[in-house]
């Protein structure tokens, strides 16, 4: 067995006698880099939202863990993701969000690519006014395409290209939430916010997975959604989270509620679920709104959280409905901000050299252990 496999063996134990990931998974630059490749590049990882490129031709550059990527909405409405690098001299192609109509033109020597990444023209490549050269074959020089998949408006990518198709990888979860496979509309500017947190990205996932902390960290939420009203959600090697049986719809000043998604079964009348889609996407579904969170790991101890809320009906300009959406976003922002001291505190706690990964509550922490188990399996994949 490799040293790492031996070191992580206690993490792979059943939750009853497992330990958490060792400190270095939160405090070491080397392990951060290891996880970058084995966990974040090797799986279906969230990099953003389709709502950021709503119109055909919209392009948004995203630098994810140092990798320059370009999200583009094509003229069929599909989202494509490319490496944001020209095949000629390696220049960054697009450095600001913009609408590029039909062509991605490199600003350096104007090599042009279409929205499918095909190399369209190479001006003066054969000398002034001569735009072809026998040695330059456009068919071989399209943009590097990054495998991508849009689900619940989250743009998932598999950067190293080794993962099985998204629909196969996440078949079980897609089936679990099939009822929500219907149009949903971003709530507008008030339904979008970002948090910068001084923590390792995994601690944000771990905190999201479990309801154990609700009574102490979210007293407001816990006043109507108590610990005993929650259940664990666990799927080995794919996702984990929690559900509630007592979701209450937010009402406005006239007691109106948001419109429901169509055709939902009775389990969603009072039910809601919050699931971490490994590695870095947190989703929440309710009868009347959804939210998605993409965790962007900035460094071993810094994470940016992009949060977006969606509804069953297209937002209009009605002031009361707009205020209602704003209230809902504020409510969630409060909840997520309440978590900050916890995830930052756990990060600081991991510099305590005697901390040994911690012991899980077998009754309450199994969704969190599920995530630790998965991370350990990813970083030791292929090792003896």
């Amino acid at each position, binding site marked *: 067995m490799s040293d790492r496999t031996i070191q992580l063996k206690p993490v792979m134990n059943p939750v009853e006698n497992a330990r958490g990931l060792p400190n270095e998974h939160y405090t070491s630059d080397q392990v951060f880099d290891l996880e970058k490749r084995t966990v974040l590049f090797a799986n279906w990882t969230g990099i953003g939202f389709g709502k950021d490129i709503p119109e055909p031709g919209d392009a948004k550059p995203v630098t994810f863990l140092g990798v320059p990527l370009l999200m583009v909405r094509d003229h069929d409405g599909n989202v494509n993701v490319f490496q944001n690098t020209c095949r000629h001299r390696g220049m960054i192609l697009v450095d*600001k969000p*913009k*609408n*590029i*109509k*039909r*062509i991605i*033109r490199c600003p350096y020597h*104007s090599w*042009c690519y279409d929205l499918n990444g095909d190399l*369209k*023209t190479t*001006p*003066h490549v054969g000398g*002034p*006014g*001569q*735009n*072809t050269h026998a040695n330059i074959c456009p068919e071989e020089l399209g943009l590097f395409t990054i495998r991508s998949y849009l689900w619940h408006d989250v743009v998932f990518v598999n950067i190293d290209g080794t993962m099985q198709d998204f629909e196969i990888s996440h078949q079980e979860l897609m089936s679990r939430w099939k009822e929500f496979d219907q149009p949903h509309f971003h709530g507008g500017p008030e339904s979008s916010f970002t948090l910068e947190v001084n923590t390792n990205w995994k601690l944000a996932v771990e905190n999201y997975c479990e309801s154990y902390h609700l009574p102490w960290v979210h007293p407001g939420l816990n006043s109507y959604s108590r610990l005993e009203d929650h259940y664990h959600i666990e799927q080995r090697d794919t996702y984990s989270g929690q559900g509630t049986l007592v979701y209450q719809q937010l009402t406005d000043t006239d007691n109106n509620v948001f419109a429901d998604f169509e055709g939902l079964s009775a389990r969603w009348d009072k039910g809601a679920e919050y699931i971490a889609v490994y590695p870095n996407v947190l989703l929440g579904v309710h009868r009347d709104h959804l939210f998605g969170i993409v965790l962007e790991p900035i460094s071993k101890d810094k994470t940016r959280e992009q949060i977006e809320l969606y509804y069953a009906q297209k937002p209009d300009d009605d002031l009361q409905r707009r205020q209602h959406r704003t209230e809902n976003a504020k409510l969630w922002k409060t909840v997520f901000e309440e978590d900050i001291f916890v995830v930052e505190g756990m990060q600081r706690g991991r510099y305590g050299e005697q901390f040994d990964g911690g012991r899980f509550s077998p009754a309450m922490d199994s969704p969190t252990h599920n995530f630790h188990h998965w991370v350990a399996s990813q970083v030791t994949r292929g090792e003896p």
Partner: protein
Amino acid sequence: MTPEELNDALVLAHQNADLNSDSLHPLVNLYHQAFTLNFPENPVAAYFYLTNAYVYALDSNHESTEQLESILRDAGRL
């Protein structure tokens, strides 16, 4: 427009080009004029300018894109 005036206009049009791709339209027209000014006496310069007109037309989805592409292709330049 004299070659000098055209050159000045091109410099100005490049300065005015921004993230809005419509701002590239003047470049398409000016480079096309430069092509006309040089063709057929100086084909190297002419097709250099026509190539630039084509590239900016492509980028800005200008109505002349197909026409410019066709001229370049017929001349064996694409």
